[in-house]
């Protein structure tokens, strides 16, 4: 049963990755836009894996770790969004997200440890 579950998970991941890489995307102009579409697909798939860990995590610390990694993936997403749109202020959003994620992770660590916030 355990090996069957392992095999089914591996099959699902491989099918999603091959669909992400080899799926034709019509009506696009250059090879750069096609490449960036595939990059967005893979990043959304990684975010789905993180959300699965947030939903199914056995302890609260697991959910905190998965939220941290989800924030890091969103930073990468905002950075890549700057290429096809040609705007620079997406990277400002990424820097602000990194700051906010660091502060909130410190607060979550203190909360899990069982201490007050003003100690």
């Amino acid at each position, binding site marked *: 049963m355990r090996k069957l579950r392992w095999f089914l998970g591996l099959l699902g991941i491989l099918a999603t990755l091959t669909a992400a890489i080899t799926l034709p995307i019509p009506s696009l102009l250059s090879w750069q836009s096609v490449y960036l579409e595939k990059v967005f697909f893979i990043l959304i798939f990684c975010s789905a894996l993180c959300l*699965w860990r947030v939903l199914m995590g056995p302890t609260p610390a697991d959910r905190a770790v998965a939220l941290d990694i989800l924030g890091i993936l969103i930073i990468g997403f905002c950075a890549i969004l700057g290429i096809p749109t040609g705007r620079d202020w997406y990277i400002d959003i990424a820097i602000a997200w990194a700051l906010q994620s*660091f502060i909130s992770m410190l607060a979550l660590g203190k909360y899990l440890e069982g201490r007050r916030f003003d100690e």
Partner: protein
Amino acid sequence: MNNINEIIGFVFIAIGLVFDFFGCLGLVRFPDIYNRLHSSIKCVTLGTSSILFGLFLYKGFTHGGIKALLCILFLLLTAPVSAHVLARSAHKSGVKLWEKSVCDKYEEDSRKS
């Protein structure tokens, strides 16, 4: 037609994507919170930093490129600190290790002192 720095930047973005994907796979597959933390922090220092460096190579020395370098610096400074805080608070709040773990030095040291 295509600049060489754009192509090298796209190669760096692909390397970062590979590290992101395997980090998230470890986040799902590993049995313990400490193993999961060990795997998934590679998303930060190799994955997202490589994506931002590829963006810097794509943009060159403009506003966006310099901001990407600043974001790399900030990520490398803060992400290990937050990972250490999370691991320490998880150990202090009583999360058990995996049953096949070999040793726990932090527990021994906190018993001694």
